[in-house]
């Protein structure tokens, strides 16, 4: 028999610190597989978030630069403007991308910074213990919205990806999920496209990946993946929101 699935080379051997059933682990593996397949380890720089994935540098065997919370897109801008032929990507969560980092994200996209952002949306602040995120859904209970998110008090879930898709500087914007094997593979395709868009110098590329947080959703991993498909995907519909390569062809 032939080995048809094994650990990507670009993933360091360290066991993940992520919780059982965390989406980060799956997404990290997809990114590492792509770095192997596209053979870009030698010219890629990763900027992880402040969040559970702050320790991403323990897993990716590529040059990695820590970022203060939310500043990833600004730091990525500094790298990319200084070294335009390297591949620079940010890997960010809800708070990083859409709360404290809103300005940096929107303006990097607006400038058409030739970088890629992987936005892991699990509708909650994981690392700090499950507080409300901008992407927390109405009625969703978190430690800082214990009565369930109420629009009158806490506003609405922020579809930052939809906002970014409207900007001219954004070249590829997509939303995927890791709820099933098929969707995991679709996520990999989307991230690959987002990296290719950078390599073609077309503009800002963003892939939002809906991901579970079983620990802070207070459900089992199996239930979390069901919730992902049955509830989160309704609030955050999957699909390609913008793709200037398609527009060109049509």
């Amino acid at each position, binding site marked *: 028999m032939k080995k048809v699935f094994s650990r990507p080379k670009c993933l360091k051997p360290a066991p993940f610190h992520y919780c059982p059933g965390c989406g980060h682990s799956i997404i990290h593996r997809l990114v590492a597989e792509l770095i192997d397949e596209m053979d870009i*380890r*030698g*010219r*890629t*720089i990763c*900027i992880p978030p402040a969040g559970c994935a*702050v*320790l991403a*540098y323990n897993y*990716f*065997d*590529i*040059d*990695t*630069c*820590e*970022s*203060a919370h939310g*500043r990833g897109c*600004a*730091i*990525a*801008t*500094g*790298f*990319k*403007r*200084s*070294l335009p032929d*390297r*591949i620079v990507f940010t890997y960010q969560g809800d708070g990083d991308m859409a709360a404290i980092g809103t*300005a*940096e994200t929107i*303006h990097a996209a607006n*400038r058409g910074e030739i970088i890629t952002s992987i936005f892991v949306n699990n509708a909650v602040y994981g690392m700090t213990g499950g507080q409300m995120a901008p992407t927390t859904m109405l009625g969703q209970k978190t430690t800082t919205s214990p009565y369930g998110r109420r629009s009158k008090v806490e506003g609405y879930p922020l579809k930052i990806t939809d906002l970014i898709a409207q900007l001219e500087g954004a070249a590829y914007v997509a939303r995927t999920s890791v709820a099933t094997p098929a969707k995991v593979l679709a996520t990999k395709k989307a991230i690959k496209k987002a990296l290719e868009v950078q390599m073609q110098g077309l503009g800002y590329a963003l892939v939002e990946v809906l991901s579970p947080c079983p620990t802070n959703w207070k459900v089992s991993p199996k239930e979390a993946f069901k919730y992902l498909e049955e509830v989160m995907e309704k609030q955050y519909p999957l699909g390609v929101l913008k793709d200037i390569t398609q527009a060109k062809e049509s």
Partner: protein
Amino acid sequence: MDKLEKVLMKGTDAIGEAAIQAGCRCYFGYPITPQNEIPEYMARRMDEVGGVFLQGESEIASINMVLGAAASGARAMTSSSSPGISLKQEGLSFLAALELPALIVNINRGGPGLGNIAPSQGDYYQATRGGGHGDYRMPVYAPASVQELYDVTMKAFDIADMYRSPVMLLGDGMMGQIVEPIHMHGREEIELPPKDYILDGAEGRPSRIVKSLVLDVRLMEEHNWKLKRKYDLMRKVLPLHEEFMTEDAKMIVIAYGTAARIAKGAVKRVRADGFQVGLIRPITLWPFPDEAIAALTKRAKLILVFEMSTGQMIDDVRLATQGRVDCELYGRPGGVVAAPQEIARIIERHWLQRELQ
């Protein structure tokens, strides 16, 4: 252009030109008065040398762009004024923790809060005591002439690379706006440590991590002491000051930046009237020239600290002299620029009140 010629330059432009000549190829900044001319100068000049100029969406974004560029191995800088420097404090703490080189220029305006756009020295504490979180220090230079703005800017990049540290140039609004003739002597080549920490893609080498998160407290303590050893080395090597007529002085004025220019004029006036007064001008505010001040004030009966604030540097003067010499403060905060005649009157008043003869 012959480098020995004198060129008439505005302070802000001298900073920009010195940075370019020092090899800075990344400028990220945001408009705020009274330093808008720096990003404007860089917007024109960076293109001419194939460098990067980007107006960030905020001072926060700008300092983080500097961080990314510095981590990629480029000489990078940003500039701002007081409220914008407050915004950059997180970035400064990170630059210090990550041990990345960068130049940060603060053209100090009136404050606190929105303040005004006139020259002030109210950011001394912010510059020398942090002002970001955590256990770090940062070299701070306070030039007092356009020539010194040029010299210090050029030197700051080397200091930043030598010690892998952010460096601050603290000028006040006056410094940024005055126009004086300067020699543009260009960059002096010095030997710098190799940049073996930068992130530029792990081709042919192990991957590198640039981080400041150290969860293990024993390792964090070690990191803190490592930084401290670096700062102790800076304390030994970097202090700079200027002394003027201090040899026989019974009273010594201590001031920096524009205040020192004014004070020098005042000292010249009172000397003409027979008062034995001298001036010490710290050029590095951190590390503060403690030893020089302690030595030069040994025979003084009184120190008069003149600051364009309600008194911040005076703390460091008191620490340096360890209570041996009385220290008086004359402060003019809020953006007021005193004339030398006023300071001369204050000097004479203190002299006569204390019967220093």
